């Protein structure tokens, strides 16, 4: 641990002692803190395996939504595709007939990369196919969804309940079990 890191930590401590205000809140609105429903966003869906070119509304009111922000340059996102696929096969549009909810689970992966100038929609489709994607994949071209979720990293996985309230969100790799648990919680199982 270097000198500057200690200085930084000391600085943090000093800020704490100064005691102005409560915990440092960053990046504005945190959907997890106020329990408000996330607004609906209309995103461009992409032509890719399991996905049709058009528009998709997310989150869908009335169903649990599993939303993953990703990027094609992101290695962890690649590895997350396998467990996401397994959970999708189990709980996605074809699979789930919940006892208490009886509804579907909306699965959606969203890249927020700038598309069209260097990285293209075809690049995303190729990536999607190479990693066995088979559900809807969309683009957050204007970063509105990214901003609303205050997503500062990818992969960023979010579960929303049927009222579109964020009930769980985490960055990084997740196993099948780690993904299933918050989804079932949102389903009320």
């Amino acid at each position, binding site marked *: 641990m270097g000198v500057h890191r200690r200085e930084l930590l000391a600085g943090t401590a000093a800020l704490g002692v100064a005691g102005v205000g409560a915990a440092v809140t960053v990046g504005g609105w945190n959907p997890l803190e106020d329990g408000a429903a996330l607004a609906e966003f209309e995103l461009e869906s992409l032509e890719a395996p399991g996905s049709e070119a058009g528009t998709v509304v997310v989150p869908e009111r009335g169903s649990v939504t599993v939303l993953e922000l990703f990027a094609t340059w992101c290695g962890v996102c690649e590895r997350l595709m396998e467990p996401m696929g397994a959970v999708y096969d189990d709980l996605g549009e074809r699979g789930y007939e919940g006892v208490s909810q009886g509804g579907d689970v909306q699965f959606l992966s969203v890249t927020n990369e700038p598309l069209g*100038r260097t990285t293209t929609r075809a690049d995303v489709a190729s990536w999607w196919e190479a990693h066995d994607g088979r559900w809807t994949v969309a683009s957050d071209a204007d970063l509105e969804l990214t901003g609303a979720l205050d997503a500062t990293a990818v992969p960023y996985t979010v579960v929303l309940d049927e009222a579109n309230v964020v009930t769980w969100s985490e960055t990084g790799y997740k196993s099948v079990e780690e993904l299933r648990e918050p989804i079932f919680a949102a389903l009320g199982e």
Partner: protein
Amino acid sequence: MVTLTAGCTALDPRDDGDDHLILGQPDQYDMLREARDGGDLAHPIYGDELPDATVPCTLHEREVSTAEFEGERHTLFTFIFARCHAACPGLTASLRHVQDDSVDGDYEDRIALCNVTFDPEHDTPAVLEEYGDGLGVDYELDNWHFLRPESEADARAVVEEQFGCYFARNEDYEGEGGGHGHGDGDGNGAGDHADEHDDGENGDSMEMAFEHASMIVLANADGYVERTYTGARLPSSRDLVDDVRTVVEGWDGGD
């Protein structure tokens, strides 16, 4: 210590009403300022002058100095190493988002995006260019700079001492092909979470060659820092683009 010039009355750029800054004060600025002035914060913050650094730029085969952008371009700096598979690609991608927006907003000639490596031994010009290609960087816009200090000592002088961005070699790192993990020094959730599960393709080690702080510095074309984003203050790409747009448009409207 001060040289007065006609028409310039605000000597302290942090004073209210100052014309060196476009953005308002960041959250908890008073505490940050107290920590910074007390020597507890290693990095420049809102209102500080951009560090005066000169570093070779691999894409343009010349030295780039931070001062050369004064009066010309607003600047974004971030600090990376190309082998990093956790926080760094996200930092670089954030600058790429701004680069793409600079085309939409017609300000590509008024922004400089500077990606500074602290691993010059590994990050040769070719490595850096390929790294940028993988993240969709558009070199033809001529506003992207890979800054590569000539040695690790030079990197320490610029990245850590001038910009206050901590980095350290990871002594447990086992070398090339050693995996994708990350130290806990990056302050970035993605990196930390990724580590715990890294059983990656390249080996068993969960370590990476460096641990480091994640930091993005936004300075205006007068050479004053408008924002330093680090740790929990890292912005979403939306927020970063919005801040840059505010600076660009405020600058245009303020003259």
